């Protein structure tokens, strides 16, 4: 609001001199100029106003900027979780799940509460202990009271409470007790996969099995670990092995089902089993995983590899034969047959009737070097690779003499794990490729790194021979109708702790593959120390003990895995044990003179 007046105020110099007109203006108006005290006061007021205005301006500017910043630029304080959670996604846990090949849960982590006490805050240790003992009956009042009277500020009472226990302890309202939310590993299938999956300790650190070998992986991610194991096959294998172990009063058993083409392990059982949900109850002698950590002299099962070796090196052909009437004498040793035959046996017959003498003859025709080379190519002389901790290395003879070559040819003097045996068998039947065994599910179309251990022709011949053993030889009890099982029995004497071989302690095994026209699965069953029964005419051999296990396993698993049974293939059992009408080309090779 300007004041209207006639007075024109014009700029003047400090001494009152008008800078424009000087003296009187044209309209005769006066130039008024202020000076002295009043002017000074006015000047001060103006300066203060300016300063105050500038401060206010700055302050408003700051507020405005902050407003713009809050409204437009920053999103702090907004809950950002809105995007992440979804009910379909898996719960974040400290340790990932382990699944079987079909997605069944083998190991998972469950949220639980753990109870701890701060004894210094507990007012009445005796009363609290008595109340607690009523909820936790496995603890005595005395032990609880001792814990609650400790001179520390922290002590665990019980870890891994059930939700019901948690609620009841909460209701007691004892001061000084508190819960910690923890996670506990849970194994829904318990002893079925005890050795394979393993277990963790209370702090969720893997102790044995897959839990240990994949400890870091499982802890680092939330994605489940998908194994190659098929829960159903594992159950079948372990069920049948358990039945056989009880029937023959064995001290243990082991079994493997292996995919012959991909090397995936579908089932791996070791009995007696262990319960991963209660690791403290496991007896010490049950920890051994017989399939991967136990080394055994496999016995006649090795004749499969010896025969393959002799055929591969060309030392013998299918129509060659040897005289097996006479035991072989080497130094003070004598190599005999379990059921001696007389006369000449062809190569198929030697395998069919499991003749030690014949196998030694054909191995010696190939030589020690060839045997070592071939067994090395089959992975029988080195520690196998698998995703399990503490794999056993095979036990080789310190010096590989001629006598070792002879005994190893029929499975004594070289101790290997059942895993290696099954893997070598896969190579024998799948066209000669040694595929690395694995416990992880292979992805579709995955390229396999496999070594050619033998030629396709040898593999083809071996398939025929192995089928023959089951059709007409010692493996008759393994003949699952329609599924073309082929395999080889094995009965090995166990080593006596006092030296030499024990008389009545043996390992009965059966190494097989099916269907033999295009083998898909290798099945190995092994019973430790079976006792002969009257029913078996006092035999406890691989053919009596382990072959029926394989038959039952194959009959149960084949429909699940879509193996088509074929008609035909039946064979008159009365002919069993009769020599085959195979034209023999008897060169009369002898090694007995060596």
């Amino acid at each position, binding site marked *: 609001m300007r004041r209207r007046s006639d007075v024109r105020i014009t700029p003047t110099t400090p001494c009152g001199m008008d800078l424009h007109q000087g003296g009187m203006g044209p309209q005769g108006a006066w130039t008024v100029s202020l000076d002295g005290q009043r002017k000074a006061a006015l000047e001060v007021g103006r300066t203060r106003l300016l300063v105050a205005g500038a401060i206010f301006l700055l302050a408003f500017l700051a507020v405005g900027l902050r407003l713009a910043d809050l409204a437009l630029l920053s999103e702090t304080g907004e*809950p950002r*979780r*809105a995007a992440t*959670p*979804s*009910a379909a*996604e*898996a*719960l974040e*846990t400290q340790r990932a799940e382990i699944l079987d090949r079909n997605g*069944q*849960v*083998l190991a*998972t982590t*469950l*949220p639980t509460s753990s109870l701890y006490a701060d004894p210094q805050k507990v007012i009445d240790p005796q009363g609290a202990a008595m109340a607690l003992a009523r909820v936790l009956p496995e603890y005595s009042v005395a032990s609880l009271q001792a814990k609650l009277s400790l001179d520390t500020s922290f002590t665990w009472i019980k870890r891994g409470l059930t939700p019901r226990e948690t609620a009841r302890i909460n209701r007691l309202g004892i001061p000084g007790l508190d819960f910690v939310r923890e996670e506990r590993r*849970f194994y*829904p*299938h*318990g002893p*079925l996969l005890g050795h394979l999956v393993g277990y963790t300790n209370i702090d969720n650190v893997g102790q044995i099995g897959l839990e240990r070998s994949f400890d870091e992986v499982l802890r680092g991610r939330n994605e489940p670990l998908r194994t190659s194991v098929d*829960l*159903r096959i*594992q*159950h*079948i294998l372990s*069920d049948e092995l358990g039945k056989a172990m009880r029937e023959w009063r064995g001290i243990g058993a082991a079994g493997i089902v292996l995919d012959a083409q991909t090397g995936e392990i579908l089932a791996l059982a070791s009995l007696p089993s262990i319960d991963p949900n209660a690791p403290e109850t496991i007896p010490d002698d049950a920890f051994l995983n017989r399939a991967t950590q136990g080394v055994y002299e496999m016995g006649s099962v090795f004749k499969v590899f010896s025969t393959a070796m002799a055929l591969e090196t060309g030392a013998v052909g*299918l*129509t060659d034969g040897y005289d097996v009437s006479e035991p072989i004498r080497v130094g003070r040793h004598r190599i005999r047959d379990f059921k001696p035959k007389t006369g000449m046996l062809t190569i*198929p017959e030697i395998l069919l009737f499991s003749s030690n003498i014949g196998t030694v003859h054909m191995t010696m025709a190939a030589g020690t070097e060839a045997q070592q080379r071939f067994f090395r190519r089959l992975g029988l002389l080195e520690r196998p690779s698998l995703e399990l901790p503490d794999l056993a290395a095979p036990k080789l003879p310190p010096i590989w003499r001629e006598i070792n070559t002879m005994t190893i040819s029929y499975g004594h003097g070289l101790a290997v794990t059942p895993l290696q045996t099954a893997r070598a068998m896969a190579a024998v039947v799948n066209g000669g490729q040694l595929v690395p065994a694995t416990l992880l599910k292979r992805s579709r179309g995955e390229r396999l790194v496999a070594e050619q251990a033998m030629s396709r022709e040898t593999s*083809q*011949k071996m*398939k*025929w021979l192995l089928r023959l053993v089951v059709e007409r030889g010692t493996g008759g009890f393994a003949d*699952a*109708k*329609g*599924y*073309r099982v082929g395999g080889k029995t094995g009965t090995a004497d166990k080593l006596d702790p006092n030296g030499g071989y024990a008389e009545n302690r043996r390992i009965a095994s059966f190494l097989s593959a099916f269907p033999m*026209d*295009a083998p898909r699965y290798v099945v190995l069953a092994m019973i430790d120390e079976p006792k002969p029964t009257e029913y078996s005419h006092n035999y406890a051999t691989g053919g009596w003990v382990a072959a029926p296990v394989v038959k039952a396993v194959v*009959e*149960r698993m*084949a*429909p699940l895995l879509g193996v*088509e*049974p*074929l*008609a*035909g*293939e*039946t*064979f*008159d059992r009365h002919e069993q044990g009769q020599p*085959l009408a*195979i034209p023999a080309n008897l060169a009369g090779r002898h090694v007995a003179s060596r």
Partner: protein
Amino acid sequence: MILRWSTLFWLGLFAAAVGLLFQIAHAVEDLEGRLRATQEQIHRDREAVHVLRAEWSYLNRPERIARLAERHLQMMPLTAPNISRISALPPRPEDMEGRTFAEGPPPPPRRPAPELAGWRAQMPQAETRPADTPDPIGDLVAATLRPAAPQPVAKTPSSGARETAHAAPRNPVTGAPLPVRPRFVSESR
């Protein structure tokens, strides 16, 4: 002089803005509360799903399923003769074109397993199945086509007074008695 229209207008706008701001702030707070509650619910649900998955796996233990199936279901293990190909099935009655069983039906096409045949041929001692030996799948087909021959009534060991009261269950095609499984006391409710 002090209360001009423009002042009133700005004051009104200010009041409206304040009111709107309060309402929005309140609505946001409410939504945030609901969001938090929903998130908690999702977390609880996920935890429950997780625990239930473990429980589902626990209840699906193969040995438990086997035990329950044995107890409650009349099922038998699937054996090789039970499995066949569609092409190995006998022709349907309407495809028989008036031919009767007595004249003999057209032989069902049977696939001779090409790989197996080839594999056998390569072997030095390829075997052929003797004519008289049983053939699990072929026999099943043959039995289906043959007119139902009078079958001896099988006396099953478990057949008691109750079993003989009404006829044993029979295969509708062949008339052969179906396998009888011994029942448990707990099942006969």
